[in-house]
């Protein structure tokens, strides 16, 4: 317990009075920029429509969870992985298979093994299964570095997608799985969108706390050292491979958790939510927010979801070409951001 509390206490050491707090925050333009963006986002979304804001909020929370988990690997440890969507998918499919409604599935033409577990029984399995798979592939991945690491993680994303597509007796292939359970506490089901959003935000807060504890601990400092110079840290007697494996598994488990929540939220999943493109998108979110900053991942996810959903409000005439026009504008905005801010919104490092 002391280990967990120590970094929190240390960071609060310098702030004893409200005036100190103000002094610490006054010069911090990044912080004000963040607060401004978030405040604007909330106002904008609520003004447009509360139900839509809640849906966008849930999308944001899930992507933020993924971005934070990926940042642990990419930002803090310096292992550029584009295979993270695979763990997200493993989590989602664990949830789907374990908790889908067997009565409903009986109606379907393709038989599927169903278990009808409640949400909270399935969620730990999502996390654990992602962790076990990550451990297995991580042992292999640890043999690689830098560019090769990108390629093998790329391969993992492709393999994962094809397993979802072709393991038909388990995943129902391209047809997808319906009626995935919503969280249930006692007799109370989290059916409402707002309830679910609050639930996901609570989990996001826990995830961020875990990530923050990891990166501020001595374990986190070793990870940063691995990113800076892996050979040097080994000279000091640290087993870099073990640290890399550990953070890889932790990160995958968080992604699995996000996957379980995602499946429960959409209540229908098919393999096309877990394509390589989504993984690239995730890496862009991490870079957009800033490498090696947890706060930045949150901000990156928010900026990205807002940009993407905000595009829906740009009026393009005629309506026939609305989709393409939005993609073009989104692309230009992202290019501009990378051009003027290559270290991301609040980051310190370039890739």
């Amino acid at each position, binding site marked *: 317990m002391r280990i967990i509390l120590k970094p929190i206490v240390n960071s609060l050491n310098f702030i004893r009075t409200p005036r100190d707090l103000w002094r610490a925050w006054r010069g911090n333009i990044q912080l004000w920029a963040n607060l401004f963006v978030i405040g604007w986002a909330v106002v904008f979304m609520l003004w*447009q429509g509360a139900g*839509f804001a809640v849906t*966008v909020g849930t999308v944001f929370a899930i992507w933020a969870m993924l971005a934070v988990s990926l940042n642990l690997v990419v930002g803090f440890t310096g292992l550029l992985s584009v295979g993270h969507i695979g763990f997200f998918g493993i989590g989602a499919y664990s949830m789907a298979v374990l908790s889908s409604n067997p009565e409903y599935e009986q109606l379907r033409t393709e038989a599927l093994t169903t278990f009808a577990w409640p949400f909270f029984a399935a969620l730990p399995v999502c996390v654990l299964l992602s962790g076990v798979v990550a451990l297995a592939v991580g042992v292999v991945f640890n043999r690689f570095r830098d560019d090769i690491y990108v390629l093998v993680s790329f391969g993992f994303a492709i393999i994962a997608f094809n397993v979802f597509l072709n393991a038909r007796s388990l995943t129902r292939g391209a047809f997808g799985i319906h009626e995935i359970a919503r969280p249930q506490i006692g007799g109370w089901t989290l059916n409402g969108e707002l309830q679910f959003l609050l639930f996901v935000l609570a989990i996001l807060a826990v995830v961020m706390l875990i990530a923050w504890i990891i990166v501020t601990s001595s374990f986190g400092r070793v990870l940063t050292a691995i990113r800076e110079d892996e050979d040097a840290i080994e000279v000091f007697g640290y087993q870099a491979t073990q640290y890399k494996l550990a953070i890889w598994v932790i990160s995958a488990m968080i992604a699995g958790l996000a996957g379980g929540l995602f499946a429960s939220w959409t209540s229908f999943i098919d393999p096309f939510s877990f394509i390589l493109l989504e993984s690239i998108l995730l890496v862009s979110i991490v870079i957009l927010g800033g490498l090696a900053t947890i706060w930045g991942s949150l901000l990156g996810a928010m900026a990205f979801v807002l940009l993407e959903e905000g595009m829906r*409000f740009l009026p393009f005439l005629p309506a026939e070409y609305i989709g393409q026009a939005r993609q073009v504008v989104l692309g230009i905005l992202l290019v501009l951001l990378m051009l003027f801010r290559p270290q991301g919104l609040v980051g310190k490092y370039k890739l």
Partner: protein
Amino acid sequence: MTIGYFRQAFVIALVVLVSIAVLACGSIGGGASSESFKIGVMESVTGPGETYGNVAVQAKQMAVDEINAAGGINGRMLELIVEDEKCNAQDAITAYRKLTDVDGVKIILGTSCSGAMLGAAPLAEEDGVVMFSGLATNPDIANAGDYIFRTSMSDAQRGIDTGNVLWSDSIRNLATITEATDYAEGVRRTSVEQFEKRGGKVVGTERYASDVTDFRSQLTKLIGESPDALHIAAQSEFTGGTIIKQARELGFNGPIYGEDVVVGATALEIAGDAATGVKAIIADLDPANSKAQEVLSNFMERYDYITLRWYLGSAYDDVYITAECLKQTDDDQDADGFRDCLYDITWSGTIGSNYSFDGNGEVVGLANVVVEILPPPDRSEDNLGYKVLGPAPSE
């Protein structure tokens, strides 16, 4: 240090500008006239289903412009609000929420992709919003709910027709190659079920992911089983055309069967001469239907291309059916009245005559046709490269 601050200030300025722009545009977009009937449209205008989504949006916009030019519905204009569902469940849900919550529509035409339909359908069912698709063909949509309708024929219908055509063409041993997407899988599964029910035998089954470009090893394996015919269920025209070409290159001379995708313009261009004689069981417009011909020539005039004729017609008809029901209910917020109207309606339009909806919201009274691809010199924009042999035989 000063440069750092300058950059930060720049980023803040950028964020402020973007936010003001989006905010301003949002208020302009939200200020549409309250006089018109507002209908939501959800199609995959980008993403894997974009060929379908764009045709659907364009056909619908054309129908709406015609209706408005003729004086609207009960003197009020019809207005479409288009959203992109990107062919996946997550974007379908956000698009659905935007339409129902921000724009306040109760009637949504769409979607293009079955996965998107199945993602948004539970929400529509819960909120009492009508979803009315002209393109989604997954058989599971039949049971998606009371508010879910479609004019597109289910893959189950397509499969039964395909199985019957195969059997009546004296095919006994079949090899199948299938793109692993919900649409193509649906076609393969239901075709094979009907074919096996009639007594046929499947000697080989291969599946491929959408981004594969070389099928030679899979085709060699299938041809090695010496089947009477090869059945292709593809979702992208590129892969459909490539498979036909590579199958003929590998020396397969037996008949090849497919559906919509293999007779698409891109597929024919890729396959070239190899496609000659390939048969397809497709949903196509009846050449004898004068209404259909009129719609096609209007579409050609307006957009200067034609593809996916039947889906174009289906999307077009959806708007007219919607207009007819709105004329009766005279309220775009009355989803229940609109739903009841759809259950009662019998419609004659572009895709067929006297068709209606059954208790599941599935269209009844439409049929698939069998077509044969013509040799390259005979292919033209008018015949789309094939001739219609007639309706698919029944059991």
